[in-house]
């Protein structure tokens, strides 16, 4: 079987997000238009220009065993929670797949920031002998992948792509390749992020990347809207189980969707600013379509990366318009979840899959007054309420600081 003709399907989904502690709760809240964003109440935030956050709906430390939780950074805890949900749903455990044929690819943007910063406080205040012996395994950026690998007993390779806010999507692309090249029979993929802490907040604020609409938390994340002023930092994780269609069918697994193709490019333009016309992003979408053997008219829906920053959203609109046209139904779910950084691509792939499965596109919240930008005006961005649609194929975009662009194409089961 040549690599590109391997049919890859999604047989398990998991998530813990600002909208819910699992996939069903998150999806219901998304369709209901609920926001996961709130204003930080801790004292440290007083001097901060941006005081908003999308915290997890359910504390992951309460979803896993106490002793296990204390040895895992919060980014690892959310990874394990989401991964175990997806794994359980897939039914792979107990189905006879050899551990040596199970792989994990789990990305994160920042990794164990809370451990790094928390243990630095310990070092400063109490000295080196008081630093936890679990500091390194908890802060390393492959920590979420490693924790997930241990949780499911994967021995076929555990990998951790790091490409900022594209990491979760990159993990999915990597998983697709592993199956196509027959490196594994099942790959558990996803992304995790949990870095709500003064330092990342200050760093992003210093870049002027965060919304300062502090008095209206639920209205702060407003992709494509004229009044958008930055993203809202979110935390959480999402996971997907990928496997070959033939083996999934052989064990009678439920198939949510097919992962038909992926495209990855780099802007080669600037370390953090997106190319203003979304050149690299458009190339990623075009590459993903070619990989999937589809044409732009086949694509009915795009879950956009759109983070609610002034420059990013218009660049992406241009990329979508140039690579796919104006017929696609676009949505930007970060309007409700906030920006989960390295988990965003995984979570939004889950949303893309559910849109295909349920034949409904979630609305972009807070899109009251679309930007005057020509591409934004030209696109059909779903707003106010979810829209029913007949969909057979959809794209999920993800971009990361560093000029990383990933586009994934999913099709109906």
């Amino acid at each position, binding site marked *: 079987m040549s690599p590109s003709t391997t049919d890859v399907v999604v047989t398990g989904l998991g998530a813990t997000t600002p909208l819910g502690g699992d996939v069903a709760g998150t999806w219901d809240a998304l369709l209901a238009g609920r926001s996961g964003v709130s204003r930080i109440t801790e004292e440290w935030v007083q001097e901060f220009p941006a005081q908003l956050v999308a915290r997890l709906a359910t504390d992951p430390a309460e979803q896993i*065993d106490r*002793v296990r939780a204390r040895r895992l950074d919060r980014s690892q805890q959310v990874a394990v929670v989401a991964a175990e949900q997806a794994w359980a749903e897939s039914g792979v455990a107990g189905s006879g797949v050899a551990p040596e044929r199970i792989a994990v690819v789990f990305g994160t943007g920042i990794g164990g920031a809370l451990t790094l910063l928390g243990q630095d406080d310990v070092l400063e205040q109490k000295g080196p*002998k*008081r630093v*936890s*012996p*679990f500091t390194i*395994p908890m802060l390393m950026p492959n920590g979420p992948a490693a924790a997930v690998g241990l949780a499911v007993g994967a021995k076929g390779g555990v990998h951790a792509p790091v490409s900022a806010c594209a990491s979760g999507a990159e993990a999915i692309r990597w998983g697709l390749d592993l199956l196509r090249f027959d490196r594994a029979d099942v790959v558990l993929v996803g992304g995790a992020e949990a870095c709500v802490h003064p330092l990342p907040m200050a760093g992003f604020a210093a870049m002027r990347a965060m919304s300062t609409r502090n008095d209206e938390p639920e209205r702060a994340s407003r992709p494509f809207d004229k009044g958008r002023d930055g993203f809202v930092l979110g935390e959480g994780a999402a996971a997907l189980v990928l496997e070959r269609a033939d083996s999934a069918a052989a064990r009678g697994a439920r198939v949510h969707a097919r992962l038909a193709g992926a495209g990855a490019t780099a802007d080669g333009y600037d370390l953090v600013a997106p190319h203003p016309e979304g050149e690299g992003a458009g190339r990623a979408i075009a590459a993903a379509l070619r990989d999937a053997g589809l044409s732009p008219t086949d694509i009915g829906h795009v879950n956009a990366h759109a983070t609610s920053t002034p420059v990013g959203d218009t660049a992406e609109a241009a990329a979508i318009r140039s690579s796919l046209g104006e017929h696609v139904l676009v949505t930007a779910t970060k309007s409700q979840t906030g920006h989960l950084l390295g988990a965003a691509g995984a979570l939004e792939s889950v949303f893309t899959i559910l849109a295909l499965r349920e034949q409904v596109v979630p609305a972009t919240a807070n899109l009251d007054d679309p930007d005057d930008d020509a591409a934004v005006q030209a696109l059909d961005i779903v707003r106010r309420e979810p829209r029913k649609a007949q969909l057979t194929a959809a794209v999920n975009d993800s971009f990361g600081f560093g000029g990383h662009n990933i586009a994934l194409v999913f099709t109906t089961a």
Partner: protein
Amino acid sequence: MASTQEIQAGLAEILEEVAGVTPADATPEKSFTEDLDVDSLSMVEIATAVEDKFGVAIPDDQLANIKTVGDAISFIESNQG
């Protein structure tokens, strides 16, 4: 000066907190690694907690020789105060 019983009880508390060991299982003959599933990194945490609770520092070269709960009790008993 803590009595042997007090040390055993205190150690059991530490083992429960750090490694999830049921207090009734923390008896002197038990091996940390073989019986209680306490790994080497957790032993480092236990040593720090012992220092906090009993004021007894366990040097690394001594920590390596502490194999059982009884070894730890003896070490604390003979080095406290």
